[in-house]
């Protein structure tokens, strides 16, 4: 062998380990719960899932207007630690994983038709979509998703 001599990295054993790992990975995905598609569109997952779910998507500009006019109730779907590090002004923290515990405190303030805007970190997250779907299941009808998320928002703040 050239770069990798048989003594230092025995190729047949390494190949065997890699092949067994690949088999376990494939088998795991075929036969065990929580399987995932073999390939998936990850970039812009927020937009594609929003469209799939029939949710309205807001741009940065529309979100700015919503924040300035106070037309929407804003929910940040990211983890609390991320919200604490920075969030869109007036947004409330509603991490999707703590939805059942946290949402109670907001439900009294929100009528089902009050406009609600949700966001998460950016184009590669879909917690905002999950949150919108949960809210829709509870009867909220006026939901929009800001798919640019906090990454786009904070980048735009820095530029100005």
């Amino acid at each position, binding site marked *: 062998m050239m770069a990798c001599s048989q003594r230092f990295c*025995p190729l047949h054993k390494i190949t065997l*380990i890699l092949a067994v790992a690949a088999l*376990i990975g494939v088998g*795991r995905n075929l036969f065990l719960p929580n399987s*995932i*598609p073999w*390939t998936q569109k990850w970039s812009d997952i927020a937009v594609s899932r929003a469209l799939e779910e029939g949710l309205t998507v807001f741009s940065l500009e529309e979100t700015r207007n919503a924040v300035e006019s106070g037309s929407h109730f804003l929910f940040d779907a990211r983890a609390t*630690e991320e919200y604490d590090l920075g969030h869109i002004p007036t947004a409330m923290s509603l*991490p999707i994983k703590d939805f059942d515990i946290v949402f109670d405190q907001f439900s009294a303030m929100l009528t089902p038709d009050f406009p609600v805007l949700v966001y998460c970190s950016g184009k*590669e997250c879909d917690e905002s979509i999950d949150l919108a779907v949960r809210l829709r299941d509870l009867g909220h009808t006026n939901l929009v998703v800001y798919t640019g998320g906090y990454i786009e928002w904070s980048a735009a703040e820095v530029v100005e």
Partner: protein
Amino acid sequence: MNRVGFYIVPLLRLALGVIFIAASYHKLIDPASFAKVISQYQILPDAAINMVALFLPPLEALCGLLLLLWPRFRASAAFLILAMLIVFTAAIGYSMYRGIDISCGCFSSGGASMRVGWTKIAENAAMILAAIAVWIQALRVR
């Protein structure tokens, strides 16, 4: 063989094996979250992300197990662990260089997972040294 080889390296091997098995657990039961973490690194193309999310956890678990239990495969497992650690560390370093603030996804894939940063790099550097020691010893004794 000196005392270091006799006492310290087997302990390092034990630690590395356990760490890799532990690190694989959450990723094995929840590949979707792990795939999301990989996508946030923004390194791999979309088509490769889910495949890697399915392939890496069993590879980590298998190498950890072989390192602990099967002497004939010890050198190969140590070599693969070393290779994985180098790739992971490079990915973390590249994310820091680009200023992407993401969770590392090393042990768990949730929001509470450790962020990428110098602490993680230092941890990985220590594990790389341990993997080298384990690999060299495995080559000698097989």
